């Protein structure tokens, strides 16, 4: 009896040591490389400091924050980012989920076609940004050429966007100017200016980001759809339920937790948008596509206002944490609901 108790005590000691050995490296790495820098930048955010100047940081209280928050240009960067996030995430959701609904059937070559569709999200944003810049070029871009082959289709699309924008009275982005430029473009399809015209530039970024990331939405939606038990549909078929009923009461509730995860990831990522913008438009024309992250980079590594940029980083961080908390709340609700 005694030896068994001893052995299990030994086992406990052994387990404890192993546990520490296994967890500690990860935790130490994360603390050194994440928590410590974050604390440091919190301190710096209350100082006037430039990383390339020889003067050491001087404490200025909350001046960095009040200056940033009262500056209207800061808000315009946030507004640009928010419009981008909203449009990109909605577009990716609709296209991704729609494709997943279509793909959720058996057909020949499916195991080959699905990974092919995933190629855009495997590419580096640098590659994507560079190449879309080439494709969207006004004079020799591929897209303008393809559009010039089907002018009437584009005309119809512009009309459609116009109608939708009018009926939901959506502000700013799908403002008349964009539909106008689309319509003008149909008259001279070879001359659409994508990346160097203020209103179109952000819209072009949405197109690029949607091309790149709607496959991610598709993948997660597909994973969710394929996990819905078939017998639920069969039971609904016996009851002669309509397609809409099946979608609303079987598919949607079972898929929604995964959809929320996908939306969470995409929103967070879209909020951080940096590499794609710096490559595709570099924030231009003017500051039409200057996102918060890009502005932060400029403040920190071009004007070297280190203290001020630390403050902006914290403002961004707080917004992201708040947003993710809202999402997680909904996620839990969706989980407990299904």
């Amino acid at each position, binding site marked *: 009896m005694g030896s068994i108790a001893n052995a299990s005590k030994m*086992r406990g000691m*052994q*387990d404890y040591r*192993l546990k520490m050995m*296994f*967890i500690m*490296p*990860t*935790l130490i*790495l*994360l603390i050194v*490389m*994440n928590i*410590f*820098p*974050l604390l*440091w*930048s919190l301190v*710096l955010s209350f100082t006037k400091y430039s*990383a390339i100047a020889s003067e050491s940081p001087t404490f200025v209280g909350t001046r960095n924050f009040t200056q940033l928050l009262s500056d209207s240009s800061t808000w315009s960067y946030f507004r640009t980012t928010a419009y981008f996030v909203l449009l990109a995430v909605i577009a990716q959701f609709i296209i991704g989920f729609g494709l997943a609904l*279509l793909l959720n059937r058996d*057909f020949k070559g499916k195991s080959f*076609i699905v*990974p*092919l*569709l*995933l*190629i855009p999200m*495997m*590419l*580096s944003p*640098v*590659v994507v940004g*560079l*190449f*879309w810049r*080439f494709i969207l070029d006004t004079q*020799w871009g*591929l897209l303008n*050429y393809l559009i010039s082959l089907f002018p009437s289709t584009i005309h119809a699309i512009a009309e459609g966007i116009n109608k939708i924008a009018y009926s939901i009275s959506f502000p700013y982005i799908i403002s008349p100017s964009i539909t106008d430029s689309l319509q003008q473009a149909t008259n001279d399809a070879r001359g659409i200016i994508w990346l160097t015209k203020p209103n179109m530039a952000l819209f072009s970024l949405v197109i690029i980001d949607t*091309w790149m990331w709607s496959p*991610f939405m598709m*993948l*997660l939606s597909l*994973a*969710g759809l394929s996990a819905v038990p078939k017998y639920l549909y069969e039971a609904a078929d016996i009851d002669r339920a309509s397609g809409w009923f099946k979608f609303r009461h079987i598919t949607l509730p079972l898929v929604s*937790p995964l959809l929320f995860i996908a939306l969470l990831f995409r929103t967070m990522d879209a909020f951080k948008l*940096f*590499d794609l913008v710096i*490559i595709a438009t570099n924030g231009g024309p003017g500051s039409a596509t200057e996102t918060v*992250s890009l502005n*932060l980079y400029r403040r920190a*590594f071009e004007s070297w206002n*280190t203290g001020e*940029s*630390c403050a902006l*980083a914290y403002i961004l*961080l707080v917004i992201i*944490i708040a947003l*993710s908390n809202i999402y997680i709340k909904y996620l839990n609700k969706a989980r407990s609901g299904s």
Partner: protein
Amino acid sequence: MKRETKKKTYHIIALIVIAIALIFYLIPVYWIISTSFKPYVDTFAMPPKFWFKPTIDNYKGLMTEGYMGTDGKRQVTGVSQYPRQLLNSVLIGFISTALAVGLGTMSAYAFSRFPVKGKGDLLFFILSTRMMPPVAVVIPLFLMYRALHLIDTHFGLILLYTTFNVSFATWMMKGFIDEIPKEYEEAALVDGYTRFKAFIKIVLPQSVTGIAATAVFCLITAWNEFTFALIMTTKNARTAPPSLASRMGSSGVEWGQIAAGTFIFLLPVVVFTFIMRKHLLRGVTFGAIKK
């Protein structure tokens, strides 16, 4: 009968839409590949050339330094920076992936099997480090690296990439390890294995799928990373993405060469992903769906 034909029509329409989507997603990729093999004069041809005589001039131009000779032929003076930068990408990508997956598997095992104080909070903390915008953390990290002389070193980038992949690896591996029945190890412990030996001999072989899927995702992230590489490297440890980006700025954009560099750069990841494609669907759901 009528319902059947209706279903069949739907099926065909769905397949047509999928085909259109496939074309839409792949045209830009085709365009990268074809541009990389186009002769210079065809790069800006209008209407764009879909058929052309392929050449490897762009690849030669990418990999070598040189100048235009007076006879109109290119004189090669040496090897360019790009092969070296690709090698940097390979080294940094694979080493950091191996480290992240290794550390992540270990901590995932510990979180999965042992009682840990404040487990939920710790796991949330680990995940939350991944949510942070890189531009927000990079300022203090830059100062820290400068003080420690880690700027533009391979070790510095490996450390960074390991850090931001390890949180993801922990979460993903925990999902996989949770599904391996505890009984296997307990039986081994009764047979006199130590815990560590049981981990090596029982748990690791069982989680090969999970490790493979996690590795794909970590490699893709590290391979494609741009922000840190741009800020933390200048020459010695510069990886391919910031190098490709900087080609944009130089006078007279050599789209053919950029395309060539891009194609070489994306090939390894696409091939790797295709090999691993069976595990991907499972991996991307973060254990949210049990199979």
